[in-house]
Structures are given as C-alpha cells and as structure tokens.
C-alpha cells in the first residue's frame, strides 16, 4: 500500500464540488481539508430549513439556501466547498452555472468508494436510514457521469479511487494565472502598438530601456537598467507596418522577464487565423498575415503559441493595479471565466452599433468604483484621460496619433508621435476642431452614483481612520445636496463643525479662554493662536484666476445669486492677482475658508423672524408684567421676588436686542459685504493644512490690503500656554472684544494640523462671549439658576463630530489634490453634510 501523498491541486479561488454517494466520506474529507466555514453541506442546510437533516422533502429549499450562501461567498472572492452527493448531472450543472455566474472555476473532487463500504458506514450511523437500493442507484449515477465531468464544465477533475487514495489526499493550492499581486513593479504600461515597431523602439528609448538586437539588427529584447518592466496592454499586431517586428521584440522581452503582456482582441483573432479557423480577414489582419508570410514557419508557430498563451489580464502590485486590454470592472478582476476573458478583450458592449457601424461600448469606466487602478487600451482616444482611477492608453498611434506609456506607480505619461498615419480609422478618433471625442457621450469622470452616497457609508480618512455615516443622515443629506447645493464639481469642501471650549465654572460665565488653553496644554501643544471670531456666516470660496468659481455656505448652497456671485468672484480674483497670490503659489485657483459678513446678509430672515421677534415679544410682554406686579406690590401683595426677577429679565431682553443688532447692517449688492478669509484650504494640486496659521493669516492680510472694502483681515494673538502672562494678555483681549458684543475668539494650534496624545487634536476651539451667548442660550441664560443647569452640557459628541468632520474635510482636499475621481472627493464632502445632521446639542 502506498503512503505517498496524493496531490489534489485546486485554484486558490474556486468552487469545489465534492461528488460521492452517501457514506463515501465526503463530510469527513471536507472537515479534514477545508475550514468549517468554507464547507456548505446539503445536510446542514436541510437541518436549517426543516430542523431535520434527513428530511428529503426539504431538499429543494435546502439547495436554494446552499446556492444562496455559495453565491454570497463567491461574490466576496472566497473559496467554497459544496458537500452534497452531486451524483446527478443536473445537480452538478446548477453548481457549474453558479461558479460561472461569479466568474470562478468549478472543480470536481470525486470520492469513488465501493458500495459495500458505503453501506457499512451508513449502517454505523444511527441517525441515518438509507436503503441499499438508494446507494446502489447513486453509485450507478456516479459511474455514469464520471467521464463527462470535464465536458460538463469542470476545469479540474480529481477522482480519488477508494478509501486508501482518499486518505492519502493532500490539497494544494495554485495561484490563478492572472494573480501577480506579489509583483510590485515599477512598470511602464504601454498602449496599443498595432505593428508600429519604430515608434515602439523610440518609446522604449524614451522610457530608458536599452534595446538588444539580433545579428540582422532587429530588436529582440529591451531591458531597463533600473529593472523596470514593460506591460503591454495588447493589440500588438494588425494595421501597422511591422507586426512581426513588434512581436519579436515583445516576445523577447516577455521571454527574458523584462515585460508582461496581456492579449488584445487582435491577438485573439490572429491565433484563430493562424490555426486556420474561419475568420474575417479585416481590420488590418490582412496586413499582419501578409507580413508573417515573409517570416519562417518556426516564427509563426512561436507567435501562435505566444499569443495563445497570453493571460486575459493581470492583477499586480498587491491588487493596486490591473492591466487588461479593454479594461475590467471590479467584479471581474482576478477572476477566471469566459466572461472575464471576453470583457478583457472586447469590453462591454450595449448590443447597439453607432453611426459608423461600430459596436457601442458600455461606459464601464464612468461607473468604476474599484480600488485598483485599471490601465487599458482598445479604444483610441485623442489624449489619455483619467476616469475614476482608470486610464485608456490607446492614443491611436497607427492612426497617426501617438504611442503612449504610463509610468507606474509615478503616474507619469510618456508618449511619442506616430511617424505617419498607417491606417484610416473607421470612425474619426482625433477631434476635428473642437468636436468631442466619440467614445462616450456626455459626462465621464464627474458622474456620481447614488451608491456613492446613500445608505450606511464608511469613508476611509488618513487622519481619523474609518468614519461612519448613518443611513438616515445620508437620506437627509441627499435631499439638501440634490436640491440646494452647488454642482458637485464645484463643491470640493465643506467646513467642519467646531466645538466650544470646556465649560467654565467662573461666576456668570459659560465659556472662558482658560479652558481652551488648558486643553491644548494637556495635548502637549505649547503655542496656540487666538483668532477673532467674526460674527457672520461661514463661507467657502473657490476662486479661479479667470474670475470664475463659487461662493457657498456650510451646506453647499450658493451664497448669492448668479450676478452677485460673479461680481464677488471677480473682485476677489482681482484682489488675489493684485496681492500676487496666484503667481507666488503657482496656482490658478484658491480655495478659501472664511466668514462672510454681515450675518444679516444670509441670515436676514432668520434674524427678523426669530431673534428680532423674540426680542419684540420680550420687550412687549416683560414691561407689562412689571407694571402689573408693581400695582400688586402697591396693594401690599408679596410679589417682591417675582417683581425683581421680571425687572432683571427686562434688562436681559435689552442686552439680547443689542447683540443681534450689532451683526446686522444693510447691504446693497456687494456694498457692505465683507469677506474675512482665515485659511487657504487648497491651491491647484496642493493642500495647506500643515502650514502654520500665521502663514494663512498673512495671506489673508495681503488680500485685505489689496481690496480693503471687500476683504477684511482677522485679528489674532499668539499665546504660549505655558506662560501665564501670555495667557493673561489673551484673556484680557478676549474680555475686551466680547464686552463690546464681539462673538469671541477661536483658539487653534499655531502649527495648524497637529497630532497629540490620541491622534489629531481639535483643529480649533471656540470661546464665545458672555453677551453673544444670549443668542444661543436664551435671553436670560445668565440668571444663576439657568446657568447652573446649562453648565451640565456635555461636549463629547460634539468633539468627536468636529474631529470626524475635520478629517473628512482634509481627506476631500487631499483626494482632490491627488487628482482622484470626482466620486472620491464627493464621498467625503457628502459625509460632512450627512454628519451635520447628526443630533447633537446645537448650542455647542
């Protein structure tokens, strides 16, 4: 008896179908070789749906459940083992279908055990009573189907003959051909060559490769001194002048390990033509075949073998890069099926043809949301254009365009022009004048899908890790975003909420600078900056050098109508130009975080209908109450205490009225409007959250100097929180400002984005003035009995929210600077808006 291991090789992602009669030991086999969670047993499913593993009447429902779970697992890319008899062809057919639906390979493992043994095992099991006839029938079915398994669609079939061989079996896994995740590059990914050998030589030269030539001077290999490798996206042949030359070079590079290559549809067709299949000799194939005629038979055979052996696509660099000729949507990446190959070679078509008779391609890239960068060719475009982290590198060299490569991971494009037009395209691909490229009508990269925003969402941020958005908050946000916000391409940032300082215990006060200083000291931050808090409305301005842009509110609404917005942006852009900001920062745009004054400019209705109204009611009702109480007191009734209280409330109502009046003044057009920027959020391709606040405020001052009527600076004071004198000066400054009715100040780490003991520290804490807080906590919140209870406020949620929104805002800016797809930026911006609808105490 042999003790040698019996190797059973299966792909690392596949659907394993165990086949064997009752009692053949399938469950034991599965238990021994696979994790319990990988095995789906029909018996267990019968138990789940009918409380009885032997209830044969539950079989249809049990299999429905088994198929469902298997589908969920396969969709998630998990190897799955089906433990059922599977002796009938129709049972196996449904499993093969399931594997194909999820683009994984079906694998059969047959446990072929003699009937007698099965009967004996069944007899040992008290829970099971299976007639001998049943076993016999099952075995007959099994034997009948055994030879046809490959025909049924199983890509690997392992027949284990008898108990002895079964016991010796050892499962070994093999990677799929397309799985080269361990290969991290760097790569130079090269677009469709189509027989343009000269341009390919030139491009490889540009990329730094050194060509090796054979004795006849023909290039047969190219090697990069730094070990970079080329990746060809396919369509090496057809239409162009020297397909054999291109093949010789690429085959040499691939053979030498200097390049990878995926097949294009043209290679696919070439193989079939070389094998004598009946194919239409069109679309440039005639040229390749003619060119190959002059080569010898060995070379033609090598070409046939090379093209036939190409793997549909590659998954590279830990899954961060996918190369496929026509691109590949996320659900097919790293999978194996005829469908994967078809998509990789031809892309997805809608089944329609366009006015030139060419198939209309489904714009899969506009919907692409995968993590992997996808590089592809297939459809010539005038210039490569990133669409959701995918890039088409076919720039129509053979049609007189260019041959293009992308350096990975650098994301740098390198291209050489075609020496001439070698072939006339069926459809013009280079734009005539300003005509749009024909590939996809309308919008591409900025298409947003509800799946990008709706439902419970988790957004990955570099500052705060995973930030979760609840479903109901997303539901509220989508309405605001859809109906009121400016267009998403203009809306790249929403400001985060800000927490107040911890509650002060000083008499008559709810907030005081001391707590803000203490917070930063505790976080190990020594230097902070106190910035005057302008009482207006938070505003974000995106201003471009040409005067275009947007000015929006905290929820993304446009501040003004179109005309006033245009006037505002022109003024701001002129000021920035005058201050030399565009020049100095090397940018054509500025994204500014600011406060827009007066408060009444945006909140006019709110001030009138709420604040002024409450004031009016108080100023009318309270004096009347005082009068009535005085009369009663004159009659000798004991209402002294009540009367005193009403008299104090009259004074509070007056103070309240003074506060809101301070933030209201009339505006006419831009006259009276004042813009107070305090942070430069982003410029073209850059964020500035790590620059000290002093830098930001200096820029703001220069803007203010350039247009003092429109732009105002922000007063600030630098504080060393370990120096009581420094703190006292800042406190005095705060007291002075707030005594005059000023809103207060914001205390920020001087260095801006700062990490403390537990991650990022609060980017700012507001310390609001005593009088201002009447607008927030009520007219007479300063009454001791009110104040005492108000001090019980809890800041935890607000702080948490402020940090999460801050992280999301920074994330949006960074994604924007990296040139990431619109949906990736929008996801963060949307999440900020959604979090803003979280229920937290709005007075904080």
């Amino acid at each position: 008896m042999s003790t040698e291991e019996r190797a059973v090789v299966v792909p690392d992602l596949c659907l394993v179908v165990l086949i064997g009669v009752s009692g053949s030991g399938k469950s034991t086999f599965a238990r021994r070789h696979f994790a319990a969670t990988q095995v789906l047993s029909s018996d267990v499913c019968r138990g789940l749906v009918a409380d009885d593993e032997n209830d044969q009447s539950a079989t249809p429902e049990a299999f429905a459940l088994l198929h469902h779970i298997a589908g969920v697992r396969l969709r998630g890319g998990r190897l799955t083992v089906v433990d059922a008899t599977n002796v009938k062809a129709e049972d196996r057919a449904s499993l093969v279908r399931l594997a194909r639906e999820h683009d994984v390979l079906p694998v059969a493992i047959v446990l072929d055990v003699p009937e007698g043994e099965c009967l004996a095992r069944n007899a040992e099991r008290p829970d099971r009573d299976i007639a001998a006839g049943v076993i016999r029938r099952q075995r007959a079915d099994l034997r009948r189907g055994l030879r046809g398994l490959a025909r049924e669609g199983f890509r690997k079939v392992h027949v284990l003959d008898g108990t002895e061989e079964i016991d010796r079996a050892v499962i070994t896994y093999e990677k799929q051909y397309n799985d080269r995740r361990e290969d991290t590059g760097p790569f130079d990914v090269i677009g469709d060559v189509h027989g343009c050998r000269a341009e390919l030589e030139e491009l490889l030269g540009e990329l730094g490769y050194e060509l090796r030539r054979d004795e006849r001077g023909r290039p047969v290999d190219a090697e990069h001194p730094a070990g970079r490798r080329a990746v060809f996206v396919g369509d090496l042949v057809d239409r162009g002048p020297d397909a054999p030359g291109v093949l010789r070079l690429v085959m040499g590079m691939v053979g030498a390990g200097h390049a990878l290559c995926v097949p294009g549809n043209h290679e696919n067709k070439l193989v079939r033509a070389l094998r004598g299949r009946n194919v239409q000799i069109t679309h440039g194939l005639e040229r390749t075949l003619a060119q190959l005629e002059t080569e010898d038979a060995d070379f033609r055979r090598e070409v046939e073998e090379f093209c036939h052996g190409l793997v549909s696509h590659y998954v590279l660099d830990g899954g961060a890069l996918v190369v496929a000729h026509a691109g590949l949507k996320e659900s097919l990446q790293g999978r194996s099926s005829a469908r994967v190959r078809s998509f990789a070679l031809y892309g997805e078509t809608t089944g329609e043809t366009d006015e030139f008779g060419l198939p209309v391609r489904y714009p899969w890239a506009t919907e692409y949301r995968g993590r992997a960068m996808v590089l592809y060719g297939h459809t010539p475009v005038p210039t490569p254009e990133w669409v959701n982290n995918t890039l088409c590198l076919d720039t129509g060299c053979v049609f007189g365009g260019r041959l293009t490569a992308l350096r990975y991971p650098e994301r740098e494009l390198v291209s050489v022009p075609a020496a001439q037009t070698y072939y006339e395209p069926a459809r013009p691909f280079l734009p005539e004048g300003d005509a749009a490229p024909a590939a996809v009508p309308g919008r591409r990269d900025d298409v947003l899908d509800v799946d990008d925003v709706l439902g419970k969402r988790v957004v990955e941020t570099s500052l705060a890790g995973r930030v979760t958005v609840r479903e109901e908050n997303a539901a509220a946000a989508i309405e605001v975003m859809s109906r009121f916000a400016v267009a998403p391409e203009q809306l790249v940032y929403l400001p985060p909420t800000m927490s107040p300082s911890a509650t002060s215990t000083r008499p008559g006060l709810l907030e005081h600078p001391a707590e803000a200083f203490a917070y930063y000291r505790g976080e190990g931050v020594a230097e902070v900056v106190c910035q005057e808090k302008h009482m207006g409305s938070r505003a974000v301005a995106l201003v471009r050098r040409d005067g275009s842009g947007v000015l929006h509110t905290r929820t993304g609404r446009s501040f003004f109508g179109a005309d006033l917005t245009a006037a505002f942006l022109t003024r701001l852009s002129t000021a920035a130009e005058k201050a030399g900001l565009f020049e100095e920062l090397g940018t054509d745009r500025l994204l500014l975080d600011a406060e827009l004054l007066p408060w009444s400019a945006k909140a006019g209705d709110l001030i009138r209908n709420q604040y002024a109204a409450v004031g009016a009611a108080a100023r009318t009702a309270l004096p009347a109450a005082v009068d009535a109480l005085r009369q009663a007191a004159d009659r000798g009734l004991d209402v002294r205490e009540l009367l005193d209280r009403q008299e104090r409330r009259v004074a509070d109502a007056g103070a309240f009225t003074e506060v809101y009046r301070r933030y209201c003044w009339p505006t006419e057009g831009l006259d009276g409007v004042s813009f107070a920027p305090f942070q430069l959020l982003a410029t073209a391709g850059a964020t500035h959250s790590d620059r000290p606040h002093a830098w930001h405020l200096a820029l703001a001052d220069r803007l203010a100097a350039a247009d003092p009527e429109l732009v105002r600076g922000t007063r600030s004071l630098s504080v060393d929180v370990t120096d009581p004198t420094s703190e006292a000066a800042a406190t005095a400054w705060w007291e002075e400002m707030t005594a005059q009715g000023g809103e207060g100040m914001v205390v920020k780490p001087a260095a801006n984005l700062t990490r403390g003991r537990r991650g990022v520290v609060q980017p700012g804490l507001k310390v609001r003035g005593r009088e201002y807080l009447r607008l927030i906590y009520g007219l007479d919140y300063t009454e001791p009995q009110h104040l005492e209870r108000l001090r019980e406020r809890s800041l935890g949620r607000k702080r948490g929210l402020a940090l999460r929104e801050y992280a999301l805002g920074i994330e949006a800016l960074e994604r924007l600077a990296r040139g990431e797809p619109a949906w990736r930026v929008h996801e963060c911006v949307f999440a900020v808006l959604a979090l803003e609808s979280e229920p937290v105490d709005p007075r904080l």
Partner: protein
Amino acid sequence: MLLTLSTTHVPATDLGFLLHKNPARAQQTSVSTGTAHVFYPEADEHRCTVALLLEVDPIGLVRTARAGGTEGAALAQYVNDRPYAASSLLSVALGKVFSSARRGVSKERPELVDVALPLEVHIPALSCSGGPEMVHRFFAPLGWRVEATAVPLDDTRPEWGDSRYVELRLSGELRVADALNHLYVALPVLDDAKHYWVDADEIEKLLRAGSGWLAAHPERDLITRRYLRHRASLTRRAIERLAEVDDAEALDDALAPPVAAVGGPADGDVEEAADRPVPLALQRHGAVLAALRSAGAQRVIDLGCGAGALLPALLADRTFTEILGVDVSARALEVAARRLRLDRLPERQQARIRLLQSGLTYTDARLRGYDAAVLMEVIEHLDLDRLPALEHAVFGAAVPTTVVVTTPNVEFNVRYESLPAGAFRHRDHRFEWTRQQFADWAGTVGERYGYAVRLLGVGDEDPVVGTPSQMAVFTRGATTEVAA
C-alpha cells in the same frame, strides 16, 4: 407671558369667587412648563383685575421635549418666544389654574356663573399668525369688542415691519367661563405654531372647551384645523437641523403649494384658480397618462414623484404592471406611502408599486430597464447647472424607452392675474422656460442621447401665449423628424 382679566361688575371682587382665587394674596401653581402666578394688580368694589403670569422655564422646556427624542432639536427651541408671547403654554396654564371657572362652577357665587359680566382682557404680546385681522376673525363673532395692534419687530429697524405679535385688548359682556374657554382655544389657534403638547385626546379637549360656541363659529374649520395640526417626523427633524446649520429658518418646501405672490404661499393654487373647470393638474395627469399609454409602457418610473401626485392614477390603471416612485425627499415618500395606504393595499396591488429615495443628479442602477420614466414638473426645481447631471442619469444611465417631461410654459404666466410680473409659479422653481427654450433643450438632449422628441401643450391653449404647461415625449432609438 401675561394675561389679565378685569371686570367692572359691582362688587368687582366677586371675580375672585368666580375664579376660585383670593384677591388678597398672590398664588403660584406649578405647571409642566414652569410656574403660573396668579395675582390681582387691582381689586376694589368697582374694578378688579386678575393677572396670570406664566414663568416658563426655558431650559426645562427643552429637557421635557427631550424625552420625545429631540436631542439635537432645532436651535429655535432654545431661543424662542415661548417664555414671552402668549401661546399654547399659557393656554395650558390657564386651563389648569382656572379649571373650575372654565367649567362654570362657583361655590360662593353660583348665581353669577351664568350671568354675562362686563369684562376686559389684556394680552400684551399674543403670538398670532395672520396678525390683527385674524384676531378680529376669531373674537368678533363671539361678541367681543376687539382692539388689536401689531407689535413692530424692532423700533430701530422700521423697514423690518411688524412682528407676529399683537397687543390685544378685548371687552364685552360675557360669562366668565365663556371668556376663559375662548382664550383657552384662541391662544394655540392664533399662534398656529408647534404645540409642545399635542396628544391623542386633543380632540376631546377642543370639543369640551368649544361647547356652546365653536359649532356656530364662522371660522370653525380654520380653528379646528389649526388646533390639531403640527406634528413632526424624525426625518423632518434631521432636515431642520441642516437648515439650521445654514442659518436658514427652514428649507424651502418643494411640496408647498405654488405661490400667489412673492412673500407667501397662497391659500389656493394660482394655476388652479385660473384653470377651472378642468384643473391644470388633472389635465397634466391626463396628458402624461396618455403619453405613457401611447408608448405602450407597462413598467414606469415616476421620477420626482413627491408626495405622490401621479402615483394613484398610475396605480388605478392595470396596464402599468410595475410602478416605481422615486424622490429625493424621504419625507415626501413617507407622505406618499401614507396617502397611497401602501401598507394596506392588497398584495397584488402592493407588488405593483415601490417607492425609492434617490437623487436625480446621481445615476442609480435601480432605475435601469424601465419602459418609461416621467419627470412631471421636476426639472424646473433643479438649478440649470445641475440639469446635465439629471440628463445623464435619466437618458444616459437609466435609459428608459420613453421619457415624458412636463414643465411650466413661462409665457403663460401673464395670464395669472395674481402672479406678479417676472415671478415664478412656485418659490422653489429655479427657472421657467418659454416654449422655444423648452424645445431647444429637448432637441439637444434628444440628439445627444439618441431619443426622438415630440412636443405637446398641456392645458387650454391661449392663441398668444400657448398652453399653461408643456410636455416633451422622448422615444429612444427613433429619429426626430424635422418639423416643417
């Protein structure tokens, strides 16, 4: 907030017996929202005045509401007029403090209970939606002489105009119980704002307080409606919080009826008023249904279905085998589901209709593969720069075979007498198009996405300005014949 009630009945101090409150001392009663003080500023033989002063605890007010899940309630709850202006809170206090008097019970002066006495009421700040005129409409039919003066918002800003508060003085000869019951109902009704106390037995309370006078009151319907409304859903609150983040009072309501004039919603619908006998809305429904039937559509999406204007008509026609109502507002869908009684439909009917939240400027795979999509009075609620996104989402991504779009014809607006020149029909409209503008848009979209376009008028045609509404029917894959 303060309310005084005086009488010149002799002896005036009998008022104390009728109210069960001794004029010789100040009393206080604890109520759910604070403390109610009762005292008499004057009390002699010829004139007696009782004052009810409710000291609201503003912080306690919010904390009580928190039990109902309003953590994160709108800021308006914290700085609001409740502690000052007479409203439902005062009504509750009045109900409690003078409960026997309201029922017409007096141990000491039973003979006076049913006698009309000379009475005066003074409320220095009464919260009133509709201003002095509404006060007159409420009290005058009840036999009161009414003196109502609007309180200005801010004397230093005369341009801001009047506040919603009215200084009210009433005088007349009435039974004390009636006077109290009038006030008990009047305060919340005139205030017409959020009650903090609407609960299931409000109807009972209203009937009791209104017995003997409400049934015959000319404004009975208005009073009842106002008394019983104002409830908020959870989604509504989330939306309110967002409005507040933006310093706005409330988001403009796309569900609100069209405006009659800038500045306020009309009681009726401008369009309806001008379009009797067959209302335009019905004509529009008819036209849309006709277009769907003519296209042979069975599976249809109503994009921007709102509270479900069209859905019942679709549901009523069995040729539509699958109906999908889509709106960006979760609140609108809640209303639609309630109106359609979705949870109570028979199973077969229920299977035909689904409601779905989605934003029309976002693509949505769930909307793919339908026979027809309706955009009835939807596009004009989108800013013009968002339209391309909607076009792509509908014509490029959802790709229904037929798309029916209706929108107002702005040329017709001159025929609405109540609509000021240049104003749109609805406050949320971002644009309204002429026939030419609509035709140009439809043509461009049709060409870009491969749809043939037919244009139709909706409503009765005016020889000069056309029909009030206009419709475009897009058919996929056909080509538009160039109109002569």
